[in-house]
């Protein structure tokens, strides 16, 4: 197991290097971090030259990349081009904030999806099955940003009509909240619902399909022929096998969402990784974008590794050596 993890991590190093270099190269080609400064009239040449020297912008691309790698390892991803602001503290905060959203919404999505998928499969072609199927089809047909706006509109309308603040539609916390925990929850509910809804739709379809597949397999017939109760057949024999595909799907998605809850975070002004990314993009800051990319890529790789480990725990046929 230890060697398996070590090997997988080693294998991912070239992928990381390739991805980081390609993106670094591509972005250095098309962006000019100084473009906004240059627009400012009477900008002193010295200031610009300072930034160019500090970021080695006149050096060949490989040298720039080497400096960036050095910064990443020894300087916490270095600092922004404009303002010379250290990147790591901001990034750290963004990771924390995103983790709060993503962990909770993924947990809700997986639990709900497993329950819905299993019940749908057990009662295939029932009204329940048709209802969940229809709702999940809506789930992957609704643009996530529009769904978020609808939630916002509903919450705001409710507040305007009743004067009761159930959920906040913006930001992470209020100033001077009487109960900071409750306040945080009120801020989190809508973004979490948004993130969870789309994932429940996708995951529950996977869960239903794999459960149906398993329920028609020979070993389920054997389990029934043994005289086991339907409950044991479902909860022991079928579920364990049917969970295997969803683990992979959820893990892949988890990594992606971690870096890319861009839309949800933008709409709800949640100061996480997605917002960090969009802000960097708008400012044309190559170094903050690169920092974001590395964290996200590592998250994806780790999520995949975790998926494989869980996979191995669920299925004894998979062996790591």
């Amino acid at each position: 197991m230890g060697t398996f993890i070590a090997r997988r991590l080693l294998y991912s190093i070239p992928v990381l290097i390739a991805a980081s270099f390609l993106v670094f190269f591509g972005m250095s080609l098309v962006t000019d971090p100084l473009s906004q400064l240059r627009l400012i009239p009477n900008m002193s040449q010295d200031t610009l030259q300072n930034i160019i020297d500090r970021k080695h912008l006149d050096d060949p691309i490989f040298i720039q990349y080497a400096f960036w790698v050095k910064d990443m390892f020894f300087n916490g991803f270095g600092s922004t081009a404009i303002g010379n602001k250290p990147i790591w503290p901001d990034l750290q905060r963004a990771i924390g904030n995103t983790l709060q959203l993503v962990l909770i919404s993924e947990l809700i999505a997986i639990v709900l999806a497993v329950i819905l998928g299993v019940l749908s499969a057990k009662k295939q072609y029932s009204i329940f099955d048709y209802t969940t199927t229809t709702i999940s089809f809506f789930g992957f047909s609704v643009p996530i940003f529009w769904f978020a706006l609808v939630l916002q509109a509903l919450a705001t309308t409710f507040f305007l009509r009743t004067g009761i603040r159930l959920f906040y539609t913006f930001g992470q916390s209020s100033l001077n909240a009487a109960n900071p925990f409750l306040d945080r929850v009120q801020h989190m509910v809508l973004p979490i619902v948004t993130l969870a809804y789309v994932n429940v739709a996708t995951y529950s379809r996977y869960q239903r399909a794999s459960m149906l597949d398993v329920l028609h397999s020979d070993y389920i017939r054997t389990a029934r022929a043994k005289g086991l109760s339907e409950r044991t057949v479902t909860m022991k024999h079928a579920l364990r096998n049917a969970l295997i595909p969803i683990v992979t799907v959820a893990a892949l998605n988890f990594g992606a969402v971690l870096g890319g809850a861009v839309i949800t975070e933008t709409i709800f002004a949640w100061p996480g990784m997605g917002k960090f990314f969009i802000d960097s993009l708008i400012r044309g800051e190559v170094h903050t974008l690169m920092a974001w990319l590395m964290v996200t890529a590592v998250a994806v790789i780790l999520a995949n590794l975790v998926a494989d480990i869980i996979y191995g725990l669920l299925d004894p046929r998979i062996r790591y050596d």
Partner: protein
Amino acid sequence: MTEPVLAIRDLVVEFDTQDGVVHAVDGVSYEVYPGETLGVVGESGSGKSVTVLAALGLIQMPPGRIARGQVLYKGRDIVGLPIDELRKIRNKEIAMIFQDPMTSLNPVFTVGNQIAEALLAHNDNMSSDQARAESVGLLDMVGVPNPDRRFDQYPHEYSGGMRQRAMIAMAMANKPSVLIADEPTTALDVTIQAQVLEVMKVAAEETGAATIMITHDLGVVAEMADRISVMYGGKVVETGTVEDLYHSPRHPYTLGLMMSLPRITGDLTRLLPIPGNPPSLISRPPGCSFHPRCRMSEGRELCRTVVPELAEVSEKHFSACHFWDEVADEVLREAAATGMSAREGRLD
């Protein structure tokens, strides 16, 4: 004569499909007596597996349904029993072995766990230690070496023959009165088949269970069975002792089966296939469902219009052919046609 331990009476099983109702089993009757082995022979689609699966409630309902008939276990009809009642019968009274031991064992649980589970499901007071000890004993009985170690292994760590032995151990766990084996050796290598059959035989003898052996392999049937029921198109077309069916079949389909067998002794150089295809189970030919493939039916109105019932040929020997008495002559003709030495109209 003793009572049959399991009797299937006029069982009709249907499946609703997009293309219409499939009559998978169309009025099947057969029975098995204590200690005896009944072979059920037929092509795929003849309904031989569906009959027993339906009897134990193991087909999906819907789309499947038992439209008519009885399944009498020790005289009690178990069709339509509430699922909890039926569950007490499964494995404890009537146990099954399936075709492919690779897919019939759950890959994510140990073999021992899956055997012990059968014991625990039917013995409320059994501790898990007892269940383990008994399971190890069962594995030993079916000839799995190092049973104590093998108990904790997963199915993928077993070979095909060993897996089927484990399936037999699982089936015998509660000493059932009836053991149903559905193509138990089809998925196995030829060299392993004989061993597994032997294990089944011994296991059945030790527990005194009656055995229903479902197969398309006439060699297996000859080896194992006391009596044979031949199924075609969802019906039993001929029933009799092994002797009766191998030496003097009284249904043209059975005859065709026998003629299509390779023989070591005969000087026959080519096998005789049965012409045509098995009947459609959705819209069955009227009359005898075998008539489109039967040479004897040529020019006979009766075969095309009237469904033949099982008629008694001799004691214990029944045939569902209007003209069963002509089959003996047909044997001679077939034999002549192939240049096989025919001795008193017998095939051997």
